[in-house]
């Protein structure tokens, strides 16, 4: 039992558990729609695009949430606009803006003469260093994202499944697309401190991908993804505590392990099923 209870004596560990559960849940919910819309690459792009915003906020002495939100939302709107109006495919637009924005972040970073540990934290995650103010902020932002999904879940589902049918029957498909890009951007901002820019995409994609292996009903998909999103970070944090290793990496590794387990044992792809059929 001390294995489970000892870390709970530390406030920083409790804060990390709470923060990563909130982040895991929000990522799983938004990530489910993201995977169904084929926007997995978008998650990676927007997290990298947030970096210059974080660095700029540091240089200006502004809160990082503000800088990251402006950069990520701005980039997501730009990608959406270019895809709709330019003669460029979506994945190409994402590729250009994603690398360009990250380069801008690295450039701004290199103008800072001294070593800034905080900014490295945004790249690789610093869940154990989250303050109570950060925890409150990311919980409020997380509730906002979940509330927006709760209001528009039907409309988002219909416009994801059949944009033409949804549009013809009166749903504002373009506005819903921009809204969803905004939700991805906000989710990434919430996740930056916990898992870092480089690993956010896993938090978004992996729980939904795992759930897809286990069920083919949307309602169950989002529930299974949420459960993974909440439980996996806790397991990762305990392993990280007892092995003294990088917490964000372990959270993602636990989720990846869950995915591989589902791949191996799941009802549709699993080896067990093959054996049952053979028997």
């Amino acid at each position, binding site marked *: 039992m001390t294995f489970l209870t000892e870390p709970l004596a530390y406030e920083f560990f409790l804060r990390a558990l709470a923060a990563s559960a909130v982040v895991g849940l929000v990522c799983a919910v938004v990530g489910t729609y993201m995977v169904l819309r084929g926007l997995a690459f978008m998650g990676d792009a927007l997290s990298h695009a947030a970096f210059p915003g974080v660095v700029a906020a540091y240089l200006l002495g502004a809160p990082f949430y503000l800088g990251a939100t402006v950069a990520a939302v701005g980039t997501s709107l730009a990608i959406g606009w270019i895809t709709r109006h330019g*003669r460029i495919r979506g994945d190409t637009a994402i590729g250009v803006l994603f690398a360009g924005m990250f380069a801008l972040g690295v450039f701004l970073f290199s103008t800072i003469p001294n070593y800034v540990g905080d900014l490295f934290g945004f790249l690789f995650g610093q869940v154990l260093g989250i303050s109570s103010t950060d925890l409150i902020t990311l919980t409020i932002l997380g509730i906002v994202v979940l509330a927006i999904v*709760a209001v528009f879940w039907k*409309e988002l589902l219909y416009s994801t499944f059949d944009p*033409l*049918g949804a549009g*013809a*029957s009166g749903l504002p498909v373009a506005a819903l697309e921009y809204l969803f890009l905004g939700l991805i951007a906000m989710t990434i901002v919430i996740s930056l401190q916990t898992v870092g820019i480089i690993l956010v995409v896993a938090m978004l994609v992996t729980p939904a991908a795992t759930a897809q292996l286990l069920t083919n009903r949307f309602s169950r998909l989002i529930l299974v993804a949420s459960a993974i999103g909440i439980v996996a970070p806790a397991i990762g944090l305990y392993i990280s505590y007892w092995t003294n290793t990088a917490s964000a990496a372990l959270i993602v590794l636990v989720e990846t392990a869950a995915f591989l387990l589902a791949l191996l044992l799941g009802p549709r792809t699993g080896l067990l099923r093959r054996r049952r059929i053979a028997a």
Partner: protein
Amino acid sequence: MTVVATLPSVRLTDVSVGYEDLPVLENVDLMLLPGSLTAVVGPNGGGKSTLLKLIAGLLRPWSGQAEVFGAEPGAHARSVAYVPQAEVVDWSFPVCAGDVVMMGRYPRLGPVRRPGARDHAAVAEALEQVGMTKFARRQIGALSGGQRRRVFLARALASEPDLYLLDEPVTGVDHATHVDLMTVLDAEARAGRTVIASTHDLAAAAHHFRSIVAVNRTIVAHGDASLVLDTDVLLRTYGGHLLFVGDRAVLIDDAHHHDEPPAGVVHHHDDEGGTPGRRP
């Protein structure tokens, strides 16, 4: 049905429309009345789908005037049910047949509200109408091609529209499904709704629909089912895809991209032409 000065469901006046800067349809004039059951025929790339999307409000006209129920397309969107071609649907999507049909109720529900008893009843009735009650909980990808088309028609029915826009609703389906779906659409038209469906199958168009619109970059002809017997109309619609064998025109539609017998052939159904269309 009493003849009243009915407002046309669809009225297009000198409309041109296309994608990016490529025009697909030019100088289109068309008027369809409530209760009409219209097949849109024409070659691939001739603008059948574009015409449906224009009426659905999914494409804005470049020029000319488009009206649906007396307003610009899209203004009465909740009275419109659009069913896309089977090819554009992701069949691995995690929804079952009943979920898809329920989507037809979403626009009238609006945000926040969850489907209630009336919505569940409408879904059950729509599934019943297309003979899919047994398959309500089956994932859509696990259904046959014909069953998928039945489910999409049920979604349209559940939305209780006044205008049906169906892109290739019976392409590649089995005979029983074809007959069942056309029976449902015929009943909807007789109840005063407007039904417009694109189709590759000229024989079926002549057999099952009451009016036919031949499209090839513009409206080539609009009339009753005997239109597909008119070699002049066929020639102007299909151009080089027509082959004349004696006095019969044979349609060589080489661009089929679905599972159907290869070259579509014009069948003559002299004995069973549809009732005359309501030509304006």
